[in-house]
């Protein structure tokens, strides 16, 4: 029975992720594509005089041939954002399944909102602060391996630190009270993350000198907006669906066996 509850949550998480992905795609198409096109225009302008540089015009032309820009900016963009939404919706539903009833006295809906907020912060925002999104044509292709490794390591570190902060906060709650325990755990998370930011290698080769700052700002703001919309919509939609599935109904003595699910382990 618990298994079917988890399965039901998973299906709803992926559905909510799909819906959130549709909203995120709309934002990405409207506010994300203009700076992407602008960056590609900058690349082509820079590559024209130095076509012999290797990675410039020749590579750009190959890219144009493989998948055309109109496809990349519509179907391609939708594929990426929707797969991302569904996959992370499923993972968030699993995180919700672990968190439900374990992070405090929160309803399923509130737990869903907290899960979405934590996912946005840990999977996107914290890694973004150290290794922010970069528009096309900005990075040095020779460092892609190193930048990819650092980025995924940063996500892993951020998620692990976040989980540790939640566990420590729960341990501190009986002594400090919920409010102060939450503040203490959050402060600990920020302090350890700040130390990690200082000691992890910088990523300054990701943006070439001379790239227009306004365009970079516009692109990064769009990236934050896409993720914020994705997780806000996910939190709201999944909250409604999860609330319907697992909300405790008013207990009537003797008939509540089917909805009673205390942890044995």
């Amino acid at each position, binding site marked *: 029975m618990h298994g079917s509850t988890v399965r039901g949550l998973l299906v709803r998480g992926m559905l909510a992720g799909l819906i959130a992905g549709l909203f995120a795609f709309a934002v990405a198409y409207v506010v994300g594509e203009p700076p992407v096109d602008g960056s590609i225009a900058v690349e082509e302008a820079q590559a024209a005089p130095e076509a012999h540089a290797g990675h410039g015009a020749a590579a750009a032309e190959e890219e144009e041939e493989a998948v055309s820009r109109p496809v990349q900016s519509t179907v391609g963009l939708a594929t990426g954002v929707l797969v991302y939404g569904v996959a992370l919706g499923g993972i968030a539903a699993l995180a919700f399944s672990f968190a439900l009833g374990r992070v405090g006295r929160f309803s399923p809906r509130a737990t869903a909102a907290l899960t979405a907020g934590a996912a946005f912060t840990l999977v996107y925002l914290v890694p973004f602060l150290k290794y922010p999104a970069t528009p096309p044509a900005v990075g040095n292709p020779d460092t892609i391996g190193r930048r990819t490794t650092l980025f995924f390591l940063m996500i892993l570190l951020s998620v692990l630190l976040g989980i540790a902060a939640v566990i420590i906060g729960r341990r501190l709650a009986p002594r400090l009270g919920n409010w102060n325990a939450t503040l203490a755990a959050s402060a600990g998370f920020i302090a350890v993350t700040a130390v990690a930011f200082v000691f992890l290698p910088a990523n300054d080769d990701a943006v070439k000198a001379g790239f227009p700052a306004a365009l970079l700002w516009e692109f990064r703001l769009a990236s934050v907006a896409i993720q914020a919309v994705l997780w806000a919509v996910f939190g709201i939609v999944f909250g409604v669906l999860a609330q319907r599935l697992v909300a405790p109904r008013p207990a009537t003595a003797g008939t509540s066996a089917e909805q*009673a699910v205390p942890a044995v382990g």
Partner: protein
Amino acid sequence: MAEAVVSAAASTPSLSAPAPLPVRAVLPWALFVGLLALIALYFVGAEQGATSVFAGATVHEWVHDGRHLLGFPCH
């Protein structure tokens, strides 16, 4: 176990927090779907960038805009 479950539910007012789902019920789903989801994220976020499962650049080019805008290092 069923009796203990019923009595535990009856003794606590169910309007507060919902009871946790047992870890052993969540874990198999977490491993199975978690793995599938991570593979899907790999193809959106990193395939044909730093590492390649398939030769060429079609996957990379197809999800190119999404990869950039979602925050992954692309090229």
